[in-house]
């Protein structure tokens, strides 16, 4: 990576006896949309706060655009944050919220008034500058939070679970909008999420975290298709574990009749999920396998199978993803 905007070197952060971040090394490229993905308590939020400057690392380096910022407080870092619950100032109107950082901001802005209008237009909030935050919907608050941060042209924009507080439909809309916005402004976005689908939809690259460490870093496709550890495979929904490899459920094919090379079993249960149906099959050796079939509307022998019926499960050898030795415990 030749144009690195943020480099974390062996960063550690302890709270009492627990290591929230336990030796994280990462490089994030300029202009990248990067996700920190993991379950709650994995250290992703602490890592984001270390980058923002709300926490200072116990060890390691945080290098932002070539300058080591470990020890520099949040208000002196060229980094801005969109908070999970937006943290808009309730006593100030939208325009004052957006203008808040301008009087401290390093980049002197020539015409604050027009740049406020510009940025509100960018997030499609033009004409709403005089509203108070409690007069805004969740999506609108999100946009104001983005405008308030982006007007300062941060080197990196940090987003803490940016879509978690929105309802499902709005979340889908904001995903598309956020992605488009990031492309337009060209600023590096780093966001934290526990939702693998959200990480896959938004990010260019993902770091999957577990117990304060990064388990795997890669493009969304790499992490999804080629998980290296059992934890990552499991978190990404690849649940069919065998000795030394894993197969994703949508790569498993079901057959209603005996098929060469297939594993024989009985249908344990089937769950209709709209676009797909999720099958649980109990293999003859007692192992539980999961297969996901598209609901393509073709009524075949498989789609008519019921619980207890015999079934044959088959997968292609090239869909077997090897697991790293010693880490698939």
């Amino acid at each position, binding site marked *: 990576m030749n144009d690195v905007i943020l480099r974390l070197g062996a960063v550690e952060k302890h709270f009492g006896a627990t290591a929230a971040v336990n030796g994280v090394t990462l490089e994030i490229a300029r202009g990248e949309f990067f996700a920190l993905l993991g379950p709650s308590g994995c250290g992703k939020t602490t890592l984001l706060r270390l980058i923002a400057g709300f926490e200072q690392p116990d060890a390691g380096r945080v290098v932002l655009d070539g300058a080591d910022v470990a020890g520099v*407080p949040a*208000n002196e870092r060229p980094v801005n944050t969109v908070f999970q619950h937006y*943290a808009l100032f309730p*006593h100030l109107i939208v325009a004052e919220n957006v203008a*808040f*950082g301008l*009087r*401290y*901001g390093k980049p002197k802005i020539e015409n604050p008034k027009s740049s406020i209008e510009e940025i509100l237009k960018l997030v499609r909030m033009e004409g709403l500058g005089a509203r108070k935050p409690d007069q805004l919907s969740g999506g609108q608050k999100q946009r104001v939070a983005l405008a308030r941060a982006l007007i300062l042209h941060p080197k990196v924009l940090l987003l803490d679970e940016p879509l978690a507080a929105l309802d499902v439909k709005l979340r889908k809309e904001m995903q598309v909008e956020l992605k488009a916005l990031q492309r337009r402004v060209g600023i590096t976005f780093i966001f934290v999420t526990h939702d693998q689908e959200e990480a896959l939809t938004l990010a260019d690259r993902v770091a999957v975290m577990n117990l304060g460490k990064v388990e795997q870093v890669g493009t969304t496709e790499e992490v999804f298709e080629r998980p290296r550890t059992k934890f990552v495979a499991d978190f990404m929904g690849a649940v069919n574990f065998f000795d030394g490899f894993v197969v994703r459920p949508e790569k498993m094919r079901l057959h209603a009749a005996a098929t060469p090379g297939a594993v024989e079993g009985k249908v344990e249960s089937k769950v209709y999920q709209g676009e797909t149906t999720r099958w649980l099959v109990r293999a003859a050796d007692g192992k539980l396998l999961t297969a996901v079939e598209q609901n393509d509307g073709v009524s075949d022998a498989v789609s008519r199978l019921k619980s207890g019926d015999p079934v044959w499960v088959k997968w292609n050898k090239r869909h077997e993803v090897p697991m790293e030795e010693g880490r698939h415990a």
Partner: protein
Amino acid sequence: MLRAVSWLVYVFLYAPIAVLVVFSFNSERQTAVWQHFTLDWYRVLFRDKLIGHAVANSLVVGLVATVVATVIGTMAGLAMARHVFFGKRATRSLLYLPVIVPEIVVGAALVSLFGFIAMRLSLTTVILAHIAFSISYVALVVQARLTGFDWSLEEAAMDLGANRWQTFWRVTLPLIAPGVLAGALLVFTLSIDDYIITSFVAGPGATTLPLQIYSMVKTGVTPEINAVSTLLLVVTIGLIAAAQRLETSRR
């Protein structure tokens, strides 16, 4: 029946005050008999040098105690609400104890403390005493205002470039201002009508209004006392009402 009882309770509660207010407008010096309406006693009051001096003392004590106790109490309330530290519960209890400790004990304790550090009783000792018993009230009111406060607002301000001081002035203080003001009004009210503690720590010439009223009552209740008490009552009710409005204002 129940209705009659409640009326009786209210009569019991407010009859003395009503008598006090009504007779402050009575033209007759003998308080027992109503003659006709007059504002004479208020005129006498405003010419009375002793009362004037006492009012001036009370205002100085009240204003200084209010400013100092509000600043310290606000800081204490913020610290209690913001930080988690070892011994927080104990510290909190110690901070709020003065609210329930009998005033007579506080007064006796303060006068022995001032004796111990060889501090002559004066108006200064009155001010110090009022500050001491007021801090807890401000801390309580401010802390109540801070329950459920979104601390990420402070982080957001710092994230946008404000230092701690700028964050306090532009974000934290405006949001807790109603609580701080309510605390200040409460302190002023407590200070302006405190008798017990003040009587212990007041030096010569440091007579406040309640002390003055009490010394006048010793020689018999006059309509002048009714008048000054009525004024004190109006001011106190006004301040408490304002404080309550602020406390219950939009969070």
